[in-house]
C-alpha cells in the first residue's frame, strides 16, 4: 500500500513516456508486443516498480549515464531502472548494474562492435568485492549457470539496455551469425574465499576490498576436463591443449580468453604455492607452438599462420590475453573457458574494462 501511495504522489517525478495499455490487456504480453524483451517474459515496468528500483541508488533519475550504441541514445538513471525492472533486478543491484553500464560505455570496451559483430560475443560481467556477497551473487556451485537472481538479472538488464535504449536488436544492428545463449546473460562473482588468492579486481589495479565490475567481450562456456593431472606444470600444459583450440586450433593472437578456475583445479596450484601471476604465465607459455605445425594450407586446411612464421614459436594469445577468475563448486576437476571476441588484431583499442561500484 505504501508503494502504491508513493507511486501516486511521486509517479509524476518520472520523466519517461507513459505507454498506455488496455484495461484488459496482459501487461507481460503488452511488453512482448512492443519489442521490449529478449524473447523471455519481462516484468512490466509500472511506476511502483520503477520507483522502488530507483531507491537502490543515490544517483538522481535524471542523471545521464551515457549514450548507448548503436544509435547513441542518451540513457538516464531512470532508463536504467526501467530496464532493471524488465530484467527482474532487485533495487540493491542498481549500483552493480550502473557500474557495468559505465564499463560497457568506455570507448576501449567497443560496445558498438561487440553488438554488431557476426561473432558470438556479448558483455561478460565479473563482479568482485563485498558487494557480490551483499547482494547474494553466486561464485560457487553452478556460478555460470541458472538459478541465482543477481547473476541472472544484472547481465540481462545490461543487454536489455543495449536493446531498448540503444536500439541494438538481432537482425538489425546485431549481425551475429549464430549468437550464443550467453547473449541473454553471463554474469557471475569471483570466489574470493581464499586470502592467498589475488582477486581479479586487485590484479587490475583496484585496492583490496574494493567492489568492482569487470566486463569482458566474450561468450560461454567451453568445458575443460582434467581429472588425472596432479602437478601445476602438467595441469597448465593440459589447459594449453584446450586453449589452443579456441575458435580454430590454427588461429593465433586473434582473441583473449577468461579461464574460470574451479576449486579442485585451483587446489593443485595452491598446494604448489602458485598464485595468479604464475598460473597466467604458465597458461600463456603452454599455448606456444612451432609455427611449422600450424601453417596455413597444411592438410588442405586454409586456416593457419603464413609460411613466413614457420620457424617462429607462436603463442595462441598476446601476453595480456588471458585472465584467470576463480569460481565454482567444491567438487569436480572441471574448469571453464570463456572465449573472447575475435578482434585480436585491434587488441590495444579493444580491452576488458573494470569499474568500481559506487554505492
Amino acid at each position, binding site marked *: 500500500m505504501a508503494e502504491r501511495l508513493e507511486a501516486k504522489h511521486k509517479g509524476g517525478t518520472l520523466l519517461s513516456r507513459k505507454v498506455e495499455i488496455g484495461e484488459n490487456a496482459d501487461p507481460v504480453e503488452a511488453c512482448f508486443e512492443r519489442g521490449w524483451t529478449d524473447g523471455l517474459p519481462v516484468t512490466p515496468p509500472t511506476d511502483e516498480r520503477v520507483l522502488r528500483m530507483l531507491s537502490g541508488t543515490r544517483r538522481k533519475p535524471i542523471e545521464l549515464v551515457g549514450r548507448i550504441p548503436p544509435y547513441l541514445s542518451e*540513457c538516464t538513471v531512470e532508463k536504467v531502472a526501467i530496464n532493471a525492472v524488465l530484467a527482474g533486478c532487485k533495487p540493491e543491484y542498481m549500483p552493480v548494474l550502473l557500474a557495468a553500464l559505465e564499463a560497457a560505455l568506455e570507448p576501449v570496451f567497443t560496445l558498438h562492435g561487440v553488438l554488431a559483430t557476426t561473432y558470438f560475443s556479448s558483455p561478460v560481467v565479473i563482479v568482485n568485492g563485498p558487494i557480490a556477497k551483499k547482494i547474494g551473487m553466486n561464485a560457487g556451485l553452478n556460478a555460470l549457470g541458472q538459478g541465482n537472481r543477481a547473476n541472472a538479472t544484472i547481465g540481462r538488464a545490461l543487454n536489455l539496455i543495449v536493446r531498448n535504449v540503444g536500439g541494438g536488436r538481432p537482425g538489425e544492428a546485431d549481425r551475429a551469425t549464430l549468437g550464443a545463449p550467453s547473449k541473454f546473460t553471463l554474469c557471475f562473482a569471483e570466489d574470493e574465499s581464499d586470502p592467498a588468492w589475488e582477486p581479479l579486481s586487485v590484479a587490475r589495479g583496484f585496492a583490496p576490498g574494493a567492489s568492482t565490475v569487470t566486463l569482458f567481450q566474450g561468450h560461454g562456456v567451453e568445458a575443460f576436463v582434467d581429472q588425472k593431472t596432479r602437478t601445476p606444470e602438467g595441469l597448465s600444459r593440459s589447459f594449453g591443449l584446450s586453449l589452443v583450440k579456441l575458435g580454430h586450433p590454427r588461429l593465433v593472437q586473434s582473441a583473449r580468453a577468461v579461464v574460470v578456475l574451479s576449486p579442485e583445479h585451483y587446489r593443485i596450484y595452491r598446494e604448489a604455492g602458485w598464485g595468479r601471476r604464475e598460473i597466467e604465465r604458465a597458461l600463456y607459455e603452454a599455448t606456444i607452438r612451432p609455427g611449422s605445425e600450424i601453417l596455413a594450407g597444411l592438410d588442405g586446411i586454409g586456416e593457419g599462420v603464413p609460411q613466413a612464421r614457420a620457424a617462429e614459436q607462436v603463442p595462441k594469445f598476446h601476453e595480456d590475453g588471458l585472465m584467470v577468475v576463480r569460481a565454482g563448486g567444491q567438487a569436480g576437476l572441471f574448469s571453464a573457458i570463456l572465449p573472447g571476441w575475435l578482434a585480436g588484431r585491434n587488441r590495444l583499442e579493444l580491452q576488458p574494462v573494470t569499474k568500481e561500484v559506487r554505492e
Partner: protein
Amino acid sequence: MSWLRDPTAETSAIKRPRVKPPATLEGLTIGLFEIGKTRSDEFLDQVEKRLAERGLKTKRYAKPTNAKVAPTDVMQRVATEADAVIIGLSD
C-alpha cells in the same frame, strides 16, 4: 486504462528517402572506403584498377579499425569529396 514506463530511448526512426544512384559515373569522384577488415585493401585495389581502366576517378578512404564506427572527420571527408562510395563490407 493502466500504463507502463517506456524503456526505450523514445526516439522514432525517421525514414529518409535514399539518394538516387547517379545516372552515369563519368566525371564523378568515386570513394573507395576501406573498413579495416582483413584484405579489404586487396579487394579495393582490384576495384580501383577496374575503374581506372574505364577512365573513372577514384579516391581512397579508410577507417582505422573495423571494430569501431568511422571517425567523424573521415565521414565528413567522404561526404564532401566523393560523389559515390564503394565499401567492401566483409573479409
